[in-house]
């Protein structure tokens, strides 16, 4: 198969970027999208041109590293997959494929198609955990959890942190990402203890990072490679309001100043 590729090239975070067009011929339909880019890079290197930088690692749809905006959609035209699971048979021969990095103020471009998603790590650091130390915990079977609760928690926990939700959201909002973690932990008895303070602190961090506000368009869920549902956002909202009206946390001036 032959393709015309329009790829965003940007030397580094400071540089101005622009699109460059490449012609690629003889690509097998069974190639994955990343293998197609590998092949492009082999050609580029042979021609003394800098290879296209893009993030990727496991290439089986679970690590969440890959992140391309392909023909106007995160992770390309198919539903419920990551870019690394996209195969060239999903395109037509002679197609033009436009490849852009995730666009969000909170995901600055590092080089070409590589962006910095460390904002997600900072959000998790602000409270995306259960505060237990290693050791001294009860037996695993001591607290039964209904299958439906465990399943719902697992649905939320399956978030891979790729950032497609932010990338596709017209507001570059991170609500689905934050909600997935909050909903995962809030549904388990172990996570309930801190559910409210967790919602408070993670939302505060999300706002601080500069993500946009959710306007419930639902695009995040549609494009999520793990099909994480909007109901988790609703659960986050509930947790947050509960926290705000019930928790004994009252910000003092300094905290507000820092925040």
């Amino acid at each position, binding site marked *: 198969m032959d393709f015309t590729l329009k790829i965003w090239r940007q030397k580094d975070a400071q540089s101005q970027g622009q699109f460059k067009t490449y012609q690629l011929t003889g690509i097998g339909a*069974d*190639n*994955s999208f*990343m*293998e197609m880019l*590998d*092949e492009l890079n082999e050609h580029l290197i042979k021609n003394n041109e800098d290879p296209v930088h893009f993030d*990727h*690692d*496991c*290439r*089986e*749809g*679970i*690590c969440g*590293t890959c992140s391309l905006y392909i023909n106007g959609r995160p992770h390309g035209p198919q539903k419920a*997959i990551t870019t690394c*699971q996209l*195969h060239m*048979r999903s395109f037509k021969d002679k197609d033009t494929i436009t490849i852009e990095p995730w666009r969000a103020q909170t995901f600055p471009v*590092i080089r070409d198609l590589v962006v910095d*998603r*460390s904002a*997600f*790590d900072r959000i*998790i*650091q*602000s*409270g*995306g*955990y*259960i*505060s*237990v*130390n*290693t*050791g001294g*915990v*009860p*037996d*695993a*079977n001591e*607290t*039964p*959890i*209904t*299958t439906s609760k*465990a*399943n719902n*928690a*697992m649905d939320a*926990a*399956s978030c*891979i*942190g790729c950032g497609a939700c932010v990338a596709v959201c017209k507001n570059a909002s991170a609500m689905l990402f934050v909600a997935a973690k909050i909903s*995962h*932990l809030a549904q*388990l008895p*172990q*996570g309930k203890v801190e559910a409210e303070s967790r919602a408070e602190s993670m939302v505060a961090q999300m706002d601080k990072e500069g993500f946009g506000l959710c306007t419930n368009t639902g695009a995040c869920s549609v494009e999520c490679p793990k099909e994480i549902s909007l109901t988790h956002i609703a659960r986050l909202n509930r947790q947050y309001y509960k926290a705000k009206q019930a928790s004994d946390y009252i910000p003092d001036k300094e905290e507000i100043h820092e925040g």
Partner: protein
Amino acid sequence: MSMKFDSKTPGGPLEDKWSKHIFDIKLVNPANKRKFDIIVVGTGLAGASAAATLAELGYNIKAFCFQDSPRRAHSIAAQGGINAAKNYQNDGDSVYRLFYDTIKGGDYRSREANVYRLAEVSENIIDQCVAQGVPFAREYGGLLANRSFGGAQVSRTFYARGQTGQQLLLGAYSALSRQVANGKVQMFPRTEMLDLVVVDGHARGIIARNLITGKIVSYSAHAVVLATGGYGNVFYLSTNAMASNTTAIWRAHKKGALFANPCFTQIHPTCIPVSGDHQSKLTLMSESLRNDGRVWVPKTKGDNRIPADIPEDERDYFLERRYPSFGNLVPRDVASRNAKLVCDEGRGVGATGLAVYLDFEDAIKRIGRDTIESKYGNLFDMYKQITGENPYEKPMRIYPAVHYTMGGLWVDYNLMTSIPGCYALGEANFSDHGANRLGASALMQGLADGYFVIPYAIGDYLATRSYDMVPTDHPEFLKAEHSKNT
């Protein structure tokens, strides 16, 4: 060939070794722990759990990973599950049986004491993970569910759909994140270790490259923990992530750490076959599929009818035929070699002839398509995505692929390499799996090492060390920088 290293395996009866050892080894008093800095390289199950636990104890941790976030380490890709000798199923499991299965599965090439300890702490791992919020699969009564894996005749594998590694890693990552927030872990993502710094015979730091700026920076510490995974990518095609590599442990090896059993590699029997020259990596289909899938090839050479047209009596269920008691659940090395044998005989299937069928027809008839879908849905989807074929209707084609490396840096019972102060955890060391690893045991080992072994073991070393830091302009740091990159 001298024996210049000591495994420090404690004496006494097997079941008392670890508890006795914990009592015997030296402790660092809580107030003094904050005077020690520890470098942890790698943030997979072993690295993240070690960094988090050591930080909880009070040590100052610098954690490094080459990925953009610690959550992306390749442990995340493990699908099937994690073993633990909980005997929740009342099917005769015990610490001793898990120990025995592991030793036997490893073809008697691992250390008894290490393996027994692994089986012992496996129970704590499950407790720990549940407390962290890992959403393991549950029975209707709300208790934990189990399934079986190769090389075992009991159900001791805990799982979270087909994403067990992901959920365990996210658990460890959350514990790590909590310590980052507490200021006890300084995290260095997109930073790759290039060399180990050894001062006066002790590991005292690393040289690392910031992958974004290219800056090469020295980091000093009182001990260095390497948890950088395996080296399966030496084969180019493997189930490892693209960036999984051997650089950290190889460069430590060149600094004097012994490298044990490098030829022990595991070939996983159930991978999606190679489809062409372009291929960059191979995708594993979880071994748990062999609980319900039946492996077969046509009885006659060159039979290229479609599978549905091959009648039952012309199929060779070669694993069930040769190994009636374990059937399709023989250990990985055995299953892989048998698949290779039938393909070498010319009975392989698919375009390349390098594949065998993994057939769910009987299972679908027996327990229904819905049950199969709930058990393996995401694996089936993944298979369909990659091959373009529907495994509910046509048997899967599978072929062995490089998956795991049992070899690694030699470590003693304390997980210390032959360089004092340098430790190796998880797949990066050699210790627990012998010549073959049982399915669902890699996750167990990574977490055992990180949560429950290194936190005690490292104290034995640090208790004897001074708090002084080696300045990063020490000649050994400079030398390491000079000689790096081979």
